[in-house]
């Protein structure tokens, strides 16, 4: 997957690689190589400090961007995946299981997108069915029973829009999942790692702390959907993305996100090790703070946190 915004950089990097090969074969071009490497670094800087909202959407959807199972593999030990909602099926678009994070037993739940077509078909492109939310709920309740903190990873374009999903109560599954999260007596840390698509994202995202990777996005509706409704033209998605305020900076400004986790220059997919490290550090810190809180305190703080999310004013009626 090649991002439009990265193209000049990738071309330059290719050229550098070629010249290096020539140098290895005996013609010394190391001076030119160094020069071009400096140029590449500058280019990287200028590209990634001027990303539009639409560029962010593309980066957030990048197929090589780390996914939930990557974070689980890199940051957790003793992960044991747990399947099924105990009522109907197991939804592969949502992965969940017990694990240890720095020695502490936790529950991990996350949307799982694929990295290629085959995997995406298996994961239904990370779009949960009602069973995905019901699996999450079953395990949230179990985590509460055993006093395990919960960590959720958000990465979905949205809940799956299909006949069977509607028949089995997609809206009810999301609503009850959200409601349950508001009253759980264990700490919840949510990390938006890629795409946060509307209700399908929020269904597992009602955290005490909501963190967002710098280039991930979180939106009430997809830019494409917004453009279709506002202007009846899906090709205006770029414009819609800019308007929806879906970037980590915007959401942090609105107070909807507690911390933006900075990504290595070029985005998470360009330096995986650094990304994992940054996520781990943030997780350690937030979890460490939350486990100190008494359960009642935790629930009350969470209520107040979401209670405060809104921008309203009292209308002043001017008499004529």
């Amino acid at each position: 997957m090649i991002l439009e915004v990265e193209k000049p950089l990738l071309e330059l990097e290719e050229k550098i690689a070629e010249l290096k090969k020539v140098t290895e074969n005996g013609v010394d071009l190391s001076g030119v190589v160094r020069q071009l490497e400096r140029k590449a670094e500058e280019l990287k800087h200028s590209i990634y400090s001027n990303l539009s909202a639409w560029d962010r959407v593309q980066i957030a959807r990048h197929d090589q961007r780390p996914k939930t199972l990557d974070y689980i593999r890199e940051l957790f030990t003793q992960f044991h995946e747990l399947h099924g909602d105990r009522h109907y099926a197991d939804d592969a678009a949502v992965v969940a299981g017990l694990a240890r994070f720095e020695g502490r037993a936790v529950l991990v739940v996350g949307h799982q997108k694929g990295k290629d077509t085959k995997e995406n078909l298996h994961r239904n492109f990370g779009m949960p069915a009602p069973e995905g939310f019901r699996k999450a709920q079953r395990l949230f309740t179990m985590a509460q029973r055993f006093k395990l903190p919960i960590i959720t990873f958000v990465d979905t374009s949205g809940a799956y829009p299909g006949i069977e999903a509607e028949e089995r109560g997609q809206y009810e599954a999301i609503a009850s999942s959200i409601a349950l999260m508001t009253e759980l007596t264990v700490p919840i840390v949510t990390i938006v790692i890629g795409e946060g698509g509307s209700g399908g994202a929020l269904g597992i995202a009602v955290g005490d702390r909501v963190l967002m990777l710098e280039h991930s996005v979180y939106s009430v509706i997809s830019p494409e959907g917004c453009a279709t409704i506002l202007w009846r033209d899906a090709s205006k998605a770029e414009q819609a993305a800019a308007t929806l305020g879906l970037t980590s900076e915007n959401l942090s400004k609105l107070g909807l996100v507690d911390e933006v986790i900075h990504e290595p220059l070029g985005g998470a997919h360009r330096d995986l090790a650094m990304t994992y490290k940054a996520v781990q550090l943030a997780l350690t810190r937030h979890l460490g703070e939350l486990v100190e809180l008494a359960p009642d305190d935790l629930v009350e703080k969470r209520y107040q946190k979401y209670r405060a999310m809104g921008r309203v004013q009292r209308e002043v009626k001017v008499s004529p």
Partner: protein
Amino acid sequence: MPSIFDKFRKQKPRIDSSEGEAVPAKAPASDLWVKCAGCGTAMYKKNFQDNLKVCEKCGHHHKMTAQERVEQMCDQNSFSEWDADVISMDPLEFGPEYLNKLQQDRAKTKLSDAVLTGSATIEGLRVALGVMDFHFRGGSMGSAVGEKITAMMEKALDQKLPTVMITSSGGARMQEGMLSLMQMARTSAAVRRLNKAGLPYMCILTDPTTAGVAASFASLGDIILAEPGAIVGFSGARVIEQTIRQKLPPGFQTAEFYQKHGFVDSVVKRAELKRTTFEMLALLTRPLEVV
């Protein structure tokens, strides 16, 4: 939500694109007659109003304004409004276009936003009541709707009242971005407080109740009633058709469909709604009745 307004443009049996509204019949005397959005029958306007905007012929339930709903559901003059001055802002700076639309809809509906909240009595039983109005920005939920509903539930909690929530909404309001999405968490959290306090919470789904509203406070009722034919669901019909590339079966995403699939307790005709609501709430709150 994947779609907010799509589905209302898709309802085929309806004879015009008026989104389920009864439209004024053509001449003569068009101000005296309306045409049913379900079957096209012309009805004398006064009879139509007296029949709670339900078609006498086909039973189609037309949309009501919040004020009409209050009149239908509450004892006369018992309704007293809360938070009548709470209005939305323009947090994403959509610009004057959005603010003007809000202003226009406030003037048109006499509401501060897409929900009317307050307390009232239903057959003498005092309740907290929320009524959404589709005529205000398609009933969409932004900060003001979320604030009014949450505040209503908190007052219900304070005053130990049962809560009745009558929904009609296309979902979260796009123009307020993620703040709109967060109203789902905000309102759901308040519902759980009612649950915990043992106060009944009843949802009445009217046409349409979809997307972010369906996926939050509208589906968390101890009891969930729905009006006949109301469109209910998460994803818009058009989005589903585009995703699966096939036509949707008739009756898909209606109140009856969701009763059949186990998500609605009972589909109740408008004329019986007040009595049913009262009796059910009384059954939950008054264990013994003098006979």
